[in-house]
C-alpha cells in the first residue's frame, strides 16, 4: 500500500513561524511551547489560538495557576490579534486553579477531558503546564504519574481531534529528563539571549514530528501585533537559499549589465555591473562611497530599475533631502522607485534585516540594493550576532544575489599606504566585484582615485583614475598612467613620462604589501 496518511498543516498566523516549522502546524499535533519566564510563550500561544479559531473551529484555553487570568486577559488584549468578540464564543477560557490545588492529576485530566468533550474544540491550550508538573511532584510516584498524565492527555486530546499546546516554563537542563518533551509531537523553545546589555529573542523548533523544521535558532520580535519570527536563512549547496525567504524567480540575463550612473566607471567595469552581482565599494571616510552608491540607485530609478537603500549611518531623512549629487530622492521615494530602510539600531539580527530588505524588494520590484555601510550594519546588529558577521553576511549576499538583485555595499577603510585591503570584515572574497577609492597626494593636493579591483568572470580596466565629487555626483578625471606608486600615497611621474628631467632618478619608495582579506 502506497497511500500515506495526509497530515493537514495549519497556518499559525505568526509571520515566519510556518516557515521554520517546515510548512505550518500539523493538525491534531500535541505541542509544547517551552522557555524561560518572559520569553513570550503565552503571547505566542494566544496568537496561534486566535489565528486557528473561527466559525468552524473553537478553542479552549485552560488557565492554571501560572499567570493570573485576570492579568493575562488585561495584557493580552493589548495585542491586535486578540479578538475580544471571540472570547466566550469561539475562544473559551477555563480556569483550573482550584482543580489543580485541590485535586489529583487524575481528576485534573477528567476535568480537561470533560470540558473538551463538551465543546469539541479544535485547539486546546494548557497554560501553564509547569504548574501541572509541579502538582505531580507532590505525588508519591511523581515522575511516573506525570508521564502517565501526559500520555493520557495526548491520546485523549488528539483522538478528540484537537491541536494542543502545553505552555510551560522550563530550563534547558530539563529537556532530557522531563517526559513532556518525549511525548510532545512538537517542541517550540523560546529564549531570551543576553549579550552584554543587549537582549535578543530566539526560537528553536526542537522537534516537529512528520516534517522538517528549519534547524537552528531563529530570532523573533514581539510588537503590538504579537510575535514575528525571522527565519534563519540557510544557503544550499549551490548558493540557493532554502525556504526561509521567498526567493524571487527572476534570473538575470547572462550578459545583462547595470549602469553605475557614471559612464567612465561603467567602461572600467567592462560595460557596467553584471546583473545579480554583489559589489564591494571600499574607501576611506569622505572618499565618495555613499555618493557613488546613491548614484547607482538613482541611475536605476531613472532606468525603471527600482532600488532599495539600507541605511545604517545617515538618517533616512538625510538621503531624502540630500541633493548634493543632484538626486531628488524624496521624489523617487514618493514615486516608489526607491525605498529607504532604516532599522532599529543595535539590536538587529541579520535575518531580521534580510526580511525587511526582501520585503522592500518585493514591494518595489527592486533590482538594485545599496547597503551603506557594512561597518554601520555590523554596529546595528545585536552584539551576539557581530561575532558571526562574516558568516551571516555570506548568507545574506547569497540570498539577495540569488534573487537577481545587484547590490552595492560600502565599506569604510582606514587609509593605509602600507598595505592594500578592501574590507575591514574580511568579506571581500564574498563579493563578485570590488571598486576601490583612495586618497593620494598629487601636485600638492589631496586627490581621490578610483580603481576596479575585480569583476568576477569579466574583463575590466586596471587603471587608477582620478575623480572628484561635483554638483551632479561623481566626476571622473584622467587616468593616472604617467604616475607610479599612487597607492603608496606618494606617487611619482614614471621616467618615460618625464620630458625635461630625464636624469632625475626615482626616489626610494615605501613598499606596498598587497594583503587582500
Amino acid at each position, binding site marked *: 500500500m502506497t497511500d500515506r496518511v495526509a497530515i493537514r498543516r495549519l497556518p499559525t498566523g505568526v509571520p515566519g513561524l510556518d516557515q521554520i516549522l517546515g510548512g505550518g502546524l500539523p493538525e491534531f499535533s500535541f505541542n509544547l511551547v517551552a522557555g524561560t519566564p518572559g520569553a513570550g510563550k503565552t503571547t505566542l500561544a494566544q496568537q496561534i489560538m486566535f489565528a486557528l479559531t473561527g466559525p468552524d473551529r473553537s478553542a479552549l484555553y485552560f488557565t492554571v495557576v501560572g499567570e493570573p487570568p*485576570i492579568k493575562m*486577559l488585561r495584557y493580552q*488584549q493589548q495585542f491586535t490579534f486578540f479578538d475580544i*468578540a471571540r472570547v*466566550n464564543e469561539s475562544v473559551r*477560557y477555563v*480556569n483550573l486553579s482550584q482543580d489543580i490545588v485541590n485535586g489529583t492529576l487524575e481528576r485534573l485530566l477528567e476535568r480537561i477531558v470533560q470540558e473538551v468533550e463538551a465543546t469539541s474544540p479544535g485547539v486546546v491550550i494548557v497554560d501553564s503546564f509547569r504548574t501541572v508538573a509541579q502538582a505531580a511532584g507532590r505525588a508519591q510516584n511523581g515522575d511516573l504519574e506525570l508521564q502517565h498524565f501526559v500520555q493520557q492527555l495526548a491520546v485523549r486530546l488528539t483522538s478528540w481531534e484537537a491541536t494542543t499546546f502545553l505552555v510551560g516554563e522550563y530550563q534547558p537542563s530539563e529537556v532530557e529528563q522531563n517526559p513532556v518533551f518525549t511525548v510532545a509531537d512538537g517542541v517550540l523553545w523560546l529564549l531570551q539571549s543576553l549579550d552584554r546589555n543587549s537582549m535578543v529573542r530566539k526560537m528553536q523548533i526542537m522537534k516537529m514530528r512528520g516534517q522538517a523544521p528549519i534547524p537552528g535558532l531563529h530570532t523573533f520580535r514581539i510588537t503590538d501585533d504579537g510575535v514575528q519570527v525571522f527565519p534563519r536563512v540557510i544557503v544550499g549547496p549551490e548558493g540557493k537559499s532554502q525556504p526561509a525567504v521567498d526567493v524571487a524567480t527572476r534570473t538575470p540575463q547572462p550578459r545583462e549589465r547595470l549602469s553605475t550612473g557614471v559612464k567612465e566607471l561603467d567602461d572600467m567595469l567592462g560595460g557596467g555591473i553584471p546583473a545579480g552581482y554583489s559589489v564591494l565599494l571600499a574607501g576611506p571616510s569622505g572618499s565618495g562611497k555613499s555618493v557613488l552608491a546613491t548614484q547607482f540607485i538613482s541611475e536605476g530609478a531613472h532606468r525603471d530599475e527600482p532600488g532599495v537603500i539600507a541605511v545604517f549611518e545617515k538618517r533616512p531623512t538625510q538621503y531624502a533631502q540630500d541633493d548634493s549629487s543632484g538626486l531628488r530622492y524624496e521624489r523617487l521615494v514618493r514615486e516608489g522607485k526607491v525605498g529607504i530602510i532604516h532599522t532599529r539600531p543595535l539590536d538587529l539580527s541579520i535575518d531580521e534585516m534580510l526580511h525587511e530588505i526582501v520585503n522592500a524588494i518585493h514591494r518595489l520590484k527592486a533590482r538594485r540594493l545599496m547597503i551603506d555601510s557594512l561597518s554601520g550594519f555590523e554596529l546595528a546588529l545585536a552584539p551576539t550576532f557581530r561575532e558571526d558577521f562574516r558568516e551571516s553576511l555570506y548568507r545574506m549576499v547569497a540570498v539577495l544575489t540569488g534573487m537577481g538583485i545587484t547590490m552595492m555595499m560600502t565599506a569604510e577603510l582606514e587609509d593605509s599606504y602600507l598595505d592594500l585591503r578592501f574590507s575591514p570584515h574580511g568579506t571581500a572574497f564574498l563579493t563578485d566585484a570590488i571598486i576601490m577609492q583612495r586618497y593620494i597626494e598629487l601636485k600638492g593636493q589631496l586627490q581621490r582615485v578610483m580603481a576596479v579591483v575585480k569583476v568576477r568572470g569579466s574583463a575590466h580596466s586596471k587603471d587608477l583614475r582620478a575623480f572628484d565629487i561635483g554638483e551632479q555626483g561623481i566626476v571622473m578625471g584622467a587616468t593616472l598612467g604617467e604616475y607610479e606608486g599612487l597607492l603608496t600615497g606618494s606617487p611619482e611621474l614614471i621616467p618615460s613620462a618625464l620630458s625635461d628631467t630625464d636624469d632625475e632618478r626615482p626616489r626610494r619608495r615605501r613598499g606596498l604589501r598587497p594583503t587582500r582579506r
Partner: protein
Amino acid sequence: MTALEHQALRQLALNALARRAGSAAGAADLAAAAQRAYDDLARASAPLIGQVGVDALTGRTLYLAQQKYPWLARTREPDQWKGAFAQIVFCLERQDPDVATEAAGAVFTTFTGLLVTFIGEPLTASLLRKAWPDAFSDASI
C-alpha cells in the same frame, strides 16, 4: 454598544437586583437578591478570571464601598468571616430597604467597574450579558 459608564453599570445592577428581589422587597429580600446576583456574576466571571480573581475583586469592592457606606465595615468576628460578599449581605440585611438597595447597587457598580478596569469593556459586557441577561431589557447598553 454604548460605553459601560458608571450610570449604565449602576442601572444594570439595579435591574438585576429588582429582577431577583421581586416586588415585595424588604431588606432581607434585597440582601438575598444581592447574593443571587453576585452568585450569577461570580459564576460567569470565574472561568475567565479564576475564582481567585473573583474573590480579589470582591475584597477590593468591599473596601471601596466602605468609603461611602461605613456601615459595611467588618462587624463579624474572624471565626465567623465567610468572605467579603457574605459580609456585604450580612450588613445589607440590617439596613433600611432603600438604603440597602442604594448600597447594593453601588457595590455591583464598583465590582463591574473594576472588571472594566482590568479586562476592558467588551469582555465585561459579555460577562454581564451571560450573568444577568434579564437586566439588559431596560438598560441603555
